[in-house]
């Protein structure tokens, strides 16, 4: 195959792959009459933000957006600290069960989290009786599960970044009179920042995309629902508001897309590293 033909094929394939996303944005920008036309056109001459306005105002979609941000944000911040501490312990300290713990972290990543929906539902039901904010129908329950699910990978990934910081730095800091705690937060933490960013993005996406646990845990408190579930609000048996659904999908996809583009290189390097 000559390079010219290969390039034509590549561009056509790229077009096909990108088409659903183009259609999503296009539909979100079309006026309602064009959306529900039985003769859909792949362009629009009168773009409007009506669908976005409808999505954000009707059915408290804006509220769901904020909920999703709160959950994903909390997961990122908490998993950052917890995985940083754990990764430091696993790389900087020597103790007996270290290897066992590392192997466990790998094994745990194989567990199909979907299968854990049933027991976790009961766990969250009991948590509700002790700490309501972390139990069923509250955003805290979602924060907790996504935190737990993102930790094994985050710790595993951060380990490499922590290990790359030379031990001499720690010795120098200790000689200068820095406490272990100070070294940790003022020296080590900034040095592993690139790794923290990469793992944070993955934790964010994980929590942001979740459908199953939001569906299972937030049963009766609609005001605590997250974005993926809110999209379902617009799906009705006979009359779907496709314009609003596509506007909502666009709003939901943009943050992930931005993050993906930002960490793309690091992500690929991380994948290649994990494979080696």
């Amino acid at each position, binding site marked *: 195959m000559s390079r010219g033909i*290969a390039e034509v094929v590549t561009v056509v394939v790229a077009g096909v792959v990108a088409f659903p*996303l183009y259609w999503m944005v296009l539909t979100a920008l079309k006026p309602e009459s064009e959306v529900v036309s039985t003769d859909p056109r792949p362009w629009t001459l009168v773009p409007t933000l009506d669908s976005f306005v409808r999505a954000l105002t009707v059915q408290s979609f804006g509220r769901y957006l904020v909920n999703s941000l709160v959950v994903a944000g909390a997961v990122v911040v908490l998993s950052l600290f917890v995985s940083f501490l754990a990764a430091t312990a696993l790389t900087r300290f020597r103790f007996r069960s270290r290897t066992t713990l590392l192997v466990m972290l790998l094994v745990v990543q194989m567990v199909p989290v979907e299968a854990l929906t049933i027991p976790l539902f009961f766990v969250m039901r009991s948590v509700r009786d002790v700490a309501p904010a972390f139990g069923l129908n509250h955003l805290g329950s979602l924060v907790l599960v996504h935190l737990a699910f993102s930790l094994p990978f985050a710790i595993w990934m951060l380990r490499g970044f922590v290990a790359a910081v030379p031990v001499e730095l720690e010795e120098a800091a200790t000689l200068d009179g820095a406490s272990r705690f100070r070294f940790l937060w003022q020296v080590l933490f900034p040095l592993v920042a690139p790794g923290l960013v990469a793992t944070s993005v993955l934790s964010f996406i994980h929590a942001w995309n979740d459908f199953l646990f939001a569906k299972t845990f937030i049963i009766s408190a609609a005001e605590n629902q997250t974005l993926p579930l809110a999209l379902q609000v617009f799906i009705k048996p006979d009359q779907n508001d496709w314009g609003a659904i596509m506007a909502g999908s666009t709003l939901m996809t943009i943050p992930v897309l931005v993050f993906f583009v930002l960490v793309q290189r690091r992500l690929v390097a991380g994948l290649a590293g994990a494979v080696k």
Partner: protein
Amino acid sequence: MTAAVEKGDGRAALAYLAPALLLLVGLLGYPIYQLVLISLFDYGQEQVSGGAPLTFLGLGNYATLLRDARFWSVLGQTVGFAAVCVVGTLLVGASLAVLATRVRAWARTTLFLAALGAWATPAVAGSTIWLFLFDANFGFVNEVLGTTGFSWTYDRWTAFGLVAAQVVWCSFPFVMVTLYAGIKAIPGEVLEAAALDGASTARTATSVILPLLRPLLIVVTIQSVIWDFKVFTQIYIMTNGGGIAGRNLVLNVYAYQQAFAASEYGLGAAIGVVTTLILLLVTVGYLRALRRSGEVL
């Protein structure tokens, strides 16, 4: 290292690890134990609300499943659906990775950007977009094919096909990017040496490139199998909870429906255990195959 240092290290390590361990044991370890436990009981709505005592069934739920024709058909569907998705993902991902090595940077960047978009789309958003593209009345696909009014989600096989296409769409980029990186990492000298020895393009591909890529191929295959075997969101959204009369159920959705729709938590948990065991077997099998062929992961 002296014993004293090690002891101090151990205590500090425990303090640093405590939050992570607490979360992992509480929200992964304990639920795994609970899943197995629940699967051994007759656990329905009355038991949940405390209105009826728990009855220990032992392996009773599993026996019920094994006798249930529905379970076997869902299991078969799950395996078939996952197989189609895995093969599709690998074929598309691998051929596009090869294609990407043959074109100039601008074309490659175009393809990778499109793939990045598909990869980044959340499953819920991706599912709804595809549903709309294939909508019976307002869908662009029916308009192009001239089949306006045709419902893709009504028939069992077109519904499965539609979901599979969506799954391939959002998961081939991972395979493509990984394999592309793998092909680029093959040293030029190796390919030159093959050319000097008079190897044809086909021979180079099968005898040089493929063996070198094998570890990567195995990894992306395992990933795809594990991923496609437990697809939940796409099936749930695109077939509205498992299709008309449950024709499009896969194990995960079946377990979910048994537990939360039919309030048969024990039975649902048993299906969850079976899914987990199958995935574990797949993983272990692949790891052994890896070791037998002398690959180091």
